[in-house]
């Protein structure tokens, strides 16, 4: 067996209003070449000016990855010619990236693999994105809306060993940046992009020849691409053939990696400090603004929710998948708690509703669970539903119907229950009255129950039959427990 070393380079588009070095709107899905200006088009004489929001968001990610934030951070020019690069150099960071030498823990399951691992982070650096070149037959078209959009690159050390670990890293990193609100994490649209590098070697021999894999535009492809590459390199080693240091492209149609370029033609980027931007030395106020923008991160939150609400590990994980869902959950539970419900009762009830019914209702409306913050079924309504259920005002089954009705009609649960008359009938006198009527119309059944020859089994079947009749007579609203007790009492009385 060989030892495998996997490192990732993850790029995220920061959700800044404007681009990183000019005032253009940071939206690249628009009509081509509408969000551009002389600065991001690289016109003669223009100068970059740093979008401080991008720096702040970058440092939030650095903090979340336990990185060291240096006293001084600056930009370099990374030089190479490409038609989608308007200046033919990219303003990036090289010698003093904004986040350095951190780590992040990943914990979870991919398929049957249970993973718990610390991955070291080499650096986080801020840079500008390039435009987009589209080849269409004999012509090439260029859209520069994306040129100059804030990009944060996070580079890990080669600490992962399997495709599953890399996939989990991407998933949890995506969840983390969404928690921080700095990136939407959409891999299909390219707002989160990952390149992987992998090398294998005999155990104890250190890193092997590094192969970089590009075009991995989903976390699944990260796993598949790495699995393919690990086995390809293993076969080469088995056969005593050399592994070539190169960049390969993942081909999702053929499920394999194909060579793109060899490292011997690697470009010399001729980095040098960007003379148009001064060194950035974050002051105490700026670092404070980074800290105050931080939120509780997913892993600690999952641990806390398990212990505070008594949820299972899997359920807590699902609740914490999206920050908006976890926020919703905790708000609803605390409101139910304020109305006198036990925390664990409310927690489990609400978690179940959220993960089953609410997910289904949102799906029907074409919404994602992450949209829950803006949904009609707001936390106060959820809390009142939990309180009503616990107090026996409605049945568990009715509660699910109430959820649908609240979502459909945008009314409070109490109003829905009142309008539909869905509250449980729990007055023993009323139920006893209905039971007496049933006992009269079902006299034969009553007689059989009271006959001494009737078996216990037969007797309980007949009793259940009568309970059903009483429930039917109350339109299904009577509390079945009370129906049962009232009926048994009446039967005892009748037998005397």
């Amino acid at each position, binding site marked *: 067996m060989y030892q495998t070393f996997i490192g990732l380079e993850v790029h995220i588009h920061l959700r800044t209003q404007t681009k990183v070095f000019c005032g253009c709107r940071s939206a690249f899905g628009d009509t081509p070449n509408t969000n551009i200006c002389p600065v991001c088009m690289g*016109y003669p004489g223009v100068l970059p000016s740093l979008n401080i929001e991008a720096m702040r968001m970058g440092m939030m990610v650095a903090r979340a990855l336990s990185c060291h934030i240096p006293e001084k951070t600056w930009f370099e020019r990374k030089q190479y010619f490409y038609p989608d690069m308007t200046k033919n150099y990219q303003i990036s960071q090289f010698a003093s990236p904004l986040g350095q030498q951190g780590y992040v823990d990943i914990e979870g399951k991919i398929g049957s693999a249970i993973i718990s691992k610390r991955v070291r982070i080499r650096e986080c650096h801020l840079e500008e994105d390039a435009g987009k070149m589209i080849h269409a037959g004999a012509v090439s078209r260029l859209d520069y809306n994306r040129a100059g959009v804030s990009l944060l690159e996070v580079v890990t050390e080669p600490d992962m060993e399997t495709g599953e670990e890399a996939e989990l890293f991407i998933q949890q990193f995506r969840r983390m940046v969404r928690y921080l609100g700095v990136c939407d994490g959409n891999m299909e649209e390219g707002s989160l992009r990952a390149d992987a590098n992998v090398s294998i070697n005999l155990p104890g021999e250190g890193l092997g020849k590094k192969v970089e894999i590009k075009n991995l535009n989903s976390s699944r492809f990260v796993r598949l691409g790495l699995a393919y590459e690990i086995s390809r390199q293993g076969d080469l080693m088995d056969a005593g053939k050399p592994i070539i240091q190169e960049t390969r492209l993942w081909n999702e149609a053929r499920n394999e990696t194909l060579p793109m370029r060899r490292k011997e033609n690697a470009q010399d980027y001729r980095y040098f400090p960007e003379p148009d931007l001064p060194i950035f030395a974050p002051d105490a106020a700026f670092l404070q603004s980074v800290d105050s923008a931080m939120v509780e991160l997913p892993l600690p939150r999952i641990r806390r929710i398990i212990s505070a609400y008594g949820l299972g590990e899997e359920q807590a994980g699902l609740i914490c998948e999206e920050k908006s869902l976890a926020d919703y959950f905790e708000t609803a539970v605390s409101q139910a708690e304020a109305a006198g419900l036990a925390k664990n009762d409310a927690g489990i009830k609400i978690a179940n509703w959220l993960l089953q019914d609410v997910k289904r209702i949102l799906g029907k409306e074409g919404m994602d669970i992450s949209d829950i913050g803006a949904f009609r079924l707001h936390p106060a309504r959820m809390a009142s539903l939990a309180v009503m259920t616990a107090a026996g005002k409605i049945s568990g089954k009715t509660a699910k119907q109430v959820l649908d009705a609240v979502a459909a009609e945008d009314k409070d649960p109490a109003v829905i229950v009142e309008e539909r008359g869905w509250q449980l009938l729990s007055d023993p006198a009323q139920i006893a009255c209905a039971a007496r009527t049933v006992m009269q119309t079902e006299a034969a059944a009553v007689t059989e129950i009271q006959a001494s020859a009737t078996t216990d089994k037969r007797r309980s079947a007949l009793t259940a039959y009568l309970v059903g009749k009483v429930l039917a007579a109350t339109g299904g609203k009577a509390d079945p427990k009370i129906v049962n007790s009232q009926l048994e009492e009446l039967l005892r009385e009748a037998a005397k």
Partner: protein
Amino acid sequence: MGYNPDKDFVQYAQAWEEKIQAFIEWRIGEELLPAPVTAAGNIPEEARTQIAGLPFAVKDNIAVRDLPLTCGSKLLEHFRSPYSAAVVRALEAAGGFVLGKTNLDEFGMGSSTDNSALKKTNNPWGIDRVAGGSSGGSAAAVAAGIVPYALGTDTGGSVRQPAAFCGVVGLKPTYGAVSRLGLVAYASSLESAGILADTTERCRAVFACIRGRDPQDETSHETPEAAPALYHAETGRAKKIGVLSPEAIARALAADATGSEALEIAVQASILEDEVRRGFELAQERLAGLGHTLAPVEIPSLKYGVPAYYTIATAEASANLARFDSIRYGARPDWAKNPEELIDKARDAGFGAEVKLRILLGTFVLRSGFQDRYYLRAQRIRAALRRDFESLLGDSGYTDTAKFDALLMPVFPSRAFGRGPSSLSAFAQKAADLYTCCANLAGLPALAFPASVEGGLPVGVQLMGRAWAEGTLLDIAEGYEQAFPFPHPEGFQAFWRQVCTKPL
């Protein structure tokens, strides 16, 4: 005083322009109205009167909306700017208006303006001579009296050297004192917008108008409170002036040059022409006569200035000029089989030889594995030079006491040179930048002004000062000008001042 666009002036300007070819495009025949004055009240009134209602010329590597921005290059021959530089907007807001765009060495690379791919500019003092460069068109236009002042850019002497060649005032401000937004970048960490003006008073007014922090140029700053005032400075008129000995520099260079042909040429190029030496000596006598105290100084690190300058300038140029790929703008080849070939052909046809040379040099010095030998070493020399100057002039933060208020030195070893056999080689021209490029390396202000006329051509001298001390330099030069009025070429008429001073 005021703009006088009557027939006489138009004929005067056209007659001069026919001889000197200073403009790439101008609006001399058009009816021009100055923009309404919109500047906030932060410009002193005495400055405004020097600008409002008057035309100015702009070097064609500084953006003016809807006007050409050729940079003297074939590649940008038909390019027009979609926006205006911050310095142009500031002058327009004070009531100035742009008469036209002036010729230059391609992208500011040269000392003669003959590196322009578009036209040849001649010196108003003798049309067989160059106007200097790279801001040669701006200097010639001011010297001929077509405009009272013009904007230039100074990366290693490109304002001061043509000012000296044409007999006008040339100011390179402190790095960061003036916004670079709209200057087509050649060497970003060295260059500044500069002023070529008919008088010291005008130069001061234009500087007062264009200086200050621009949020769109993060390397720009406001003048610190502790810096000498631009107007009505309360310090005495007599200054302490350090005199840099050209002979000492030439000796220091010669000591290193043994056995190297190239370095021998550099030594020769650094030696002052007799007329320049006479002008330099005369300036010393006159300044002493005006009550200033002069003392000799030596700056040993100066001999490394030119190599450090060209290493840094070309490194930055190789990146700054990479954007000219003719994908989004610029002259394109008729046909290319792919985008890469389009870029190759456009740059091959669009750039002149000097530009290609500097891009190649810059690419060479930035190669990975060689940075320590070239680029980083040049940066260390630069830091040492800055320290040496600060030890004489005081630091930029005004935390120490200066030994000198200013340093006096030559601008260029020769007067305006001719073309053909009497010309200076491209290599000698670079070596001769040693007196000007150090101000750019150190980021300090430097002012060139006409000291005298020797052999029918003006000789300029240069004052270098502490960071943000433009006011001090202008005060010294203004005192000189009052006592020894600046010269003008034959045929010059003063349209921009009531009293026409006679040539010396």
